[in-house]
Each structure stands twice: as C-alpha cells, then as structure tokens.
C-alpha cells in the first residue's frame, strides 16, 4: 500500500495544484448534514435530537491535535483524568458515551475510560455529538450520548503536510493525501506525535503527561462498481509507546519504577453499499478492531510488574434505508457482534473471555406536515453473557415559525457490564494487597480462599453477588432554538437523565490481614439534570462571538434517601458531628455545577484569522474528608478555574499556512486535581498543501 502511495505521489499528473479559497464565513447553524443522530444522512435543521457539530475549520483554528483538545471546548462536555483522558457528557462518566469513528465503535477501555488522546485530528472532517440516550440506534454504551468522528472524504487535497512544534518538545507531523478518479477514491493520513511530557510537581521523577511517541495511520479506499454500488475499505492503526517512570509511596516507603507501555489500536472496516433507487438503499458492513495494551514496570528493587489487555471486537451488520414516501422514512438494521478479551488481570491471561450479541433495530421518521417531524425507534440487543436490553426512543421537532424551533426527545440507553466487571481477578500487591474479583468468579474464588483460611470477614454484600444486569438510563431532553436574525442563534436545553442498576465496586469482605476484597454489584440509582445555553453572534464581517453555559446538578438517589431519613452525619467547625442536611449535599463527585465558555473569532477575510477562547469550570468535589460516605459541602473540593487560549494563523492561496498559539495563557495549574493540565504551552504549525485543479 505504502509503495503504491509513493509512486502515485511522484506522478506529476496527481499533483495538479488548485487554488481553493477558504471560506471564512461562519454559518450560524448552517444546514450541514448530520449522520449520527438518525444513522442516516439528514439535514441539521430536520434533526429531532440535540446535536453539536464541530467542523474541521473549528478544529484547525483552535490548534487542536488530539480529540481531547477539541472536546474540552464543547458545551456540556468535560474531560476527566485517570486512566487516560475520558469525556464526561452532561454529568455522566466516560463509560456511558460511545465513541465512533465513521460509525464504528472504538474499544479498549481501561476502567471504563477510552483514552481520547489516542485519536489524532489531522484528517477529521467533523465531529458530531449527539446528547441523550441513543441505544435505540447504537446499543450498549450510548447511554449519555454518542460522539462520532467523521474522517475527511473530500478528494480535493492531493497532498497536505504539516509540522508542529510546541512546549515540552511536542512535535506533530501529519501528511494527508487523496487521489480520486471518477470511480476510485483514496485517502491516506499519516501522523506522528511525540512529546517529552511534563512534570508539574517539582523534583519529581514522575511525569504527569508521560513521554509518548505515537503513530497514526489511516487509509481509505472507495470504489464505485457502478452508478448504484460501491465498496469501501477503511484501515486505521494507532501505535503508541509510553515511558512511564513512577514513584509509589506506600506507608512512607517510596518505590521508584521504570515503566514502559505499548498500546496498539487497529481497525479495519469493509462495506458494500447499494442503492436500488432513490427511495431504497442498503449497506453491508463488517468491522474488525483489536486493542492491545502491554505495560511493563520494573521497580528499582527489581520486582517486575506486568499488565496485559487484548480486546477484539468483530461485527457484521446490515442497514437498509427506505424512503417509503415523502413523509415517511424507515431504517431497519440487524447485526451480530463477537467480542473477546484477554487480560493478565483475569484469572488466566491465556483464556479469552467472550460475549456475542445479536441485535436488530428500526426507526421511523414521519413528517405529517412540514413544520412537524416525529421520530421513533427501538433496538433489541440479545447478549450471551448477560441480560438482554430493549432500547426505545421517541423524539419530535416542531417549527413554530422561521425563528423558533422546539425539540423533545425521550429515550432509553444501556451499558452492558464490561468484561472487567465480570472477569477481573486482580490483587494489588503494591498497595496493601487488596483484591477485586469480577462477579463471574467472585464467590468461587472467595470460597476457595476461605477453605485456605485466608478470609477474615465477609459482608452482607458478598451474599448479594449475582449476575450483573446492564446499567440503564432514561433521558429526557427538551430544547428551544431561536434564530432572531441571520446573524444570531440562541438555544436553551433542559435535560434529565435517570440511571438505574449502576454497577458499583463494593467491598464484599476482607482477608485475615485486613486487606479489602471488592466485587461489583448493581446497586446504584442516580440522576443528572441541568440546563445548557448556547448563543452565537456574528458581530460583523470580521468578528464572531459564541458563548455556552451549563448548569448541572447530580445526585445518588439512595444517598439522598438516607440523608432524608436523617441517617447521614457531617461535622461542624469544632469537629463535632451533626446531621447532614439535604442542602449540604453536592451530588456525584467530579462534576461542575457551572461550566461556561466564551469564544471570539476574528477573520480578516484574506486568510488571516485569530481567536481567543475562555473556559470556566466551577468547584468540584474530589474527596470525602469529613467522615461520611457522601459528598457534601464539608468535603474537599478542587478550585474552579478559568483557562485562556489563543491562536493566530493564516492560510495563503499558494497552499502555505501557518499557525501559532498559546494554551493556558495564565499558567493555571493544580497538580493534584488536574494532572492533565500542563502549564502555559506554546506551539507553531507550518502547513503546505497542493490544491487540485
């Protein structure tokens, strides 16, 4: 493949340069096409559920390299740290948002978190963010929403190369190339990223962001067999090596370790698409993805530590779209998934734990009259390893007039218990010898340990262990969109998610030594609710302003019940206990009550642009410090903060472009609570592209 690519590039015929004018006007809610919300192409103006679109220009002008960089600047989203950078959507943890690339899911989560730094943004056309449960179309994990990354498919850039250098010896090199004829389309993307990382604690040999070198390769081929059929192949490979030297303190003794991580993420998709008529089309898709993570840790004392994870996911799917009439559109689909995981944290890393899923879904969109669209869908997932799930969804859009629009969506989402919750068999020798056992074997393992006389105590929770059910949620989103003029846009969105059967780690017993034993139980009930506001204003031909705000409250329903029953205590200023009032309760940890952003964009009209972005997060609870099990005002909070970002750049008609920027201008740092936030960083990018005639 690579050879082929080089030869083609060297042929001058493919280097037809074309001058492409870059359109700098910001469209308010420009009627772009959305594919994620309905699993089929729909105009944004006809989408009945809340969607945010981030386009390539926004990504490029913000100077974003990795998916995390751009998502943290989107309304309603928040990045979490720990096990990589995950995304929290409307207060729900990273586990509950499915991440798709061109509609196919990414796998390889650690503790439920998919590290979004894995995804390079160099060849991204747009990112679609659908808020609210979407399991009716996407199945497990689409409980809070869906983030779909859509790669470039336009073939008007035969070659594009970029080089970026930034603080901490961060280098990013990207090459994009595309070739197309009438029936053939090829696109390739190569990216190399390296950083020396940084350490924000003085005199520490631990690096908060670890030295990384990461390669990304993306190849897409499409061949039009005839006017009605095409076949498409996509390959994506990410390979990263991380040097992770860490220090672990245990009982005052510090152990320094030299760590090496090697993660690979590769996927291939093949699809056959056929259009029978303008009304009927179908596509067969196969998808194979594998995630491999290997971690080697050698302590100074010589004791080795080794961790391995291998996750394979295969899928076969058919989807048929049928425009029954002008008013009725129908989507039907069915598929099967085979999934397997091997891990050194399970009882044997040789045994692959597997699950198979069969599913079917259908969705009908009905437009009874022009200003009114109703959409209903349902999906059924039959799981081998755990209970089946039905996921219905209903949504509607009503256009009052040219300026006002109302949307309502009600849906159910679920998240299947993951392999670790079922098969984990992990004892942490480094930190006190605690163990975590998955539900499939917890009872058996503990019984065996009991026979060996190693179990000190068993709690009531041990006897409650049983096959896990999927976690499920019901989400309601109500939004109002208002476009007073062509240059202004305002939206208000109310949301509420109710979650049942939350799977939580629970102590089920203790060893004779006192070390804790944990397993998983479906015990939690929680909610998140809030308001999201967005406003965009085109000030004049040069300036655009956009603002967003989110108010969020969350809570654990069982904790609220015990607080109401007068069974939860806290401490006053003297350290004396008092009853906790509901007004002291702050809900789930790591959630910000207020989150806001303000962005000012400038465009000179001749290719020169500049922007200034301000992000704000209010306080969030991080630690339970006052002797109860709930998070309240007396606990430890991380301070809210504002971060400022700017970038300036220009693109010229001869194909050259440059950009320079500064992130975290005020150098805000909080090593303890924001390990992923480095101090002030600078970067400069140079880009060259050859345009097609």
């Amino acid at each position, binding site marked *: 493949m690579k050879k082929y690519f080089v030869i083609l590039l060297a042929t001058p015929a493919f280097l037809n340069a074309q001058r492409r004018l870059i359109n700098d006007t910001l469209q308010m809610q420009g009627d772009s096409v959305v594919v994620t919300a309905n699993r089929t192409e729909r105009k944004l103006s006809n989408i009945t559920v809340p969607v945010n679109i981030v386009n390539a220009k926004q990504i490029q002008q913000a100077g974003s390299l990795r998916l995390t960089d751009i998502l943290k600047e989107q309304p309603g989203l928040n990045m979490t740290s720990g096990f990589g950078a995950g995304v929290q959507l409307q207060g729900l943890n990273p586990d509950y948002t499915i991440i798709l690339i061109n509609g196919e899911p990414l796998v390889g989560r650690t503790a439920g978190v998919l590290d979004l730094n894995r995804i390079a943004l160099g060849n991204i056309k747009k990112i679609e963010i659908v808020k609210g449960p979407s399991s009716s179309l996407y199945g497990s994990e689409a409980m809070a929403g869906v983030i779909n990354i859509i790669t470039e498919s336009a073939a008007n850039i035969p070659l594009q190369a970029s080089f970026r250098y930034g603080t901490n010896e961060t280098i990013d090199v990207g090459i994009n190339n595309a070739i197309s004829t009438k029936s053939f389309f090829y696109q390739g993307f190569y990216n190399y990223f390296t950083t020396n990382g940084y350490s924000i604690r003085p005199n520490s040999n631990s690096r908060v962001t670890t030295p990384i070198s990461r390669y990304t390769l993306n190849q897409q081929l499409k061949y039009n067999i005839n006017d009605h059929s095409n076949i498409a192949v996509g390959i994506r490979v990410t390979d990263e090596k991380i040097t992770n030297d860490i220090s672990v303190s245990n009982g*005052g003794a*510090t152990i320094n370790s030299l760590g090496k991580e090697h993660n690979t993420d590769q996927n291939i998709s093949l699809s056959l698409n056929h259009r029978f008529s303008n009304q009927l089309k179908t596509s067969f898709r196969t998808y194979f993805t594998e995630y491999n993570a290997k971690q080697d840790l050698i302590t100074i004392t010589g004791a080795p530590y080794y961790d391995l994870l291998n996750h394979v996911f295969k899928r076969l799917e058919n989807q048929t779209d049928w425009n029954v009439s002008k008013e009725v559109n129908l989507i039907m689909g069915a598929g099967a998934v085979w999934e397997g995981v091997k891990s050194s944290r399970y009882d044997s890393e040789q045994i692959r734990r597997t699950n198979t899923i069969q599913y079917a879904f259908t969705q009908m969109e009905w437009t009874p009259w022009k200003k009114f669209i109703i959409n209903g869908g349902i999906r059924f997932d039959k799981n081998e390893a755990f209970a089946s799930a039905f996921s219905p969804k209903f949504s509607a859009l009503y256009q009052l007039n040219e300026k006002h629009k109302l949307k309502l969506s009600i849906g159910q989402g679920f998240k299947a218990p993951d392999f670790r919750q079922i098969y984990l068999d992990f004892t942490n020798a480094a930190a006190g010898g605690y163990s975590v056992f998955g539900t499939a074997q917890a009872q058996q393992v503990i019984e065996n340990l009991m026979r060996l006389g190693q179990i000190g105590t068993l709690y009531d929770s041990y006897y409650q262990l049983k096959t896990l059910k999927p976690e499920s949620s019901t989400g309601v989103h109500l939004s109002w969109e208002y476009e007073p003029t062509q240059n202004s846009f305002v939206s208000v969105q109310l949301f509420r998610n109710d979650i049942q059967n939350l799977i939580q780690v629970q102590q089920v017993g203790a060893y004779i030594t*006192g070390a804790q034993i944990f397993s998983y139980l479906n015990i939690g009930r929680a909610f998140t609710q809030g308001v999201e506001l967005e406003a965009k204003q085109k000030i004049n031909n040069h300036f655009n302003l956009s603002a967003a705000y989110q108010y969020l409250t969350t809570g654990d329903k069982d904790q609220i019940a015990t607080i109401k029953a007068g069974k939860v*205590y806290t*401490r006053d200023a003297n350290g004396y*206990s008092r009853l906790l009032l509901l007004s002291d309760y702050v809900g789930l940890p790591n959630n910000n009550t207020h989150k806001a952003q303000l962005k000012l964009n400038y465009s000179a009209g001749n290719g020169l642009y500049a922007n200034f972005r301000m992000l704000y997060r209010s306080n969030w609870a991080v630690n339970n*410090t*006052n002797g*109860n099990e709930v998070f309240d005002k007396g606990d430890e909070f991380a301070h809210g903060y504002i971060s400022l970002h700017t970038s300036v750049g220009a693109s010229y008609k001869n194909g050259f472009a440059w950009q320079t920027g500064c992130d975290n201008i005020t150098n805000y740092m909080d090593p303890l609570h924001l390990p992923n936030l480095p101090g002030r960083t600078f970067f400069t990018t140079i880009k060259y592209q050859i345009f097609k005639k």
Partner: protein
Amino acid sequence: MNKQLKQFAIYIILSASIAACSKSTSTVVLPIAALSVKDIPADTVVGLSAQGAPITNGKYTFYSLEKNAIVPNTDSASTKWDIAFMATRIIINGGTSGAGQGGAFVYTGLFDDLKIIPADSVFKTDNAPTSYAITAGSGKGWYTYDGLNNLITPLAGRVLVIRTASGKYVKMEITSYYKGGATLPASASDMEKLTKQRYYSFRFAYQPNGTKMF
C-alpha cells in the same frame, strides 16, 4: 362549641398542674459537662528507616477517663486506665485487654442526642486478636481509610459508648486522628501525613454516679 372550649380549658389546667407537680417531685438531672481532649499521641511515628518506612515504638497510650489523664505504661496491668490507643486500634480495660470491668460499643447517632444508654445495649469486650469492643477496619468501627490519599477520617455520627474499668459509663466522640484536630487535606505531603497522624482528639462525658444517663 362551648363544651369543647371547656374541655380545652380543663386540659390546659391539668397539664400545667402535672408539669408543676413533676418539677417539684423529681430530682433535677443536670447534663454531664463534656470535656474536650486534644492531640493524645497514639504510637506516633518517631523516625524513618533507611528505606523510608515509618518507625514507631509499638506501644499503647493508656488513658483514664475518670481522671481525664494519660496513665503511664507501667500501670498497664492495673485498673487505673479505661481506654488505650495505638494507631487506629482502640482497646478497653476488660476482656483480654485488662483486669477492669470495661466494655464498649459504637453507637450511631449524635453525641448530644445520646442522653440515656438504651437498656438493650450490648457492651462488647475485647477478645484479642479476633475481635475488639471497638471494631477496627475502615468503615466498620470509628473511622474510614482513604487509600488513595492515605488519610484516616473518624466517621461522623459515631459515639463510643464505654463502660470504664470501674463500671462507670462514658460517651465519647472522636473528632480527629491528626495533630491539630483536623484531618489533613489530601494535598498534604507524605511526610506531613506520616508525622501528624496518630494523634487523637475527642470529647467525652463521664457519669460518675454509675447510671447510664448523661
């Protein structure tokens, strides 16, 4: 209407006279004053080994609740002490721990609300090493342990109800395990967490008359 009013008047008069009556006949029970104790060391860290592991003397600190004072370790075999502390372990002078009549249990509720020890309360005694009157372990007795940040926090709303070596009753609330009277922030240095831990602060009420009322 009139009848109801009359009944109401009678009720008022009756209840007033009952109140007056009870005031004059029963003995007035004054609440026992609570005493505050700060920073009692409990086998504190005295140094670090070459590998950086903490070094302690491995000895209990004995305390007399009757005298509100530390009892020297030489009197450990006597009935002069009621309660003793060593790190998170608490022992009571009775059972396997001492010659006294001591026993205890952990009551869930507020210190001020516990005016009478319920009649059906069971005082447990130490039965080392399998069980103790005051259960050790995170979340099980009087404290929780935050393994991530290496901090011990006394559980809120827990009262240690103690029978002393001489059979008197005490209620006690532990307020802190760190020197200075408050749990350290998670951001405190490891060194600070090591050296400032194992200091008990508590308040207690001692009923000298042998009753279970405070």
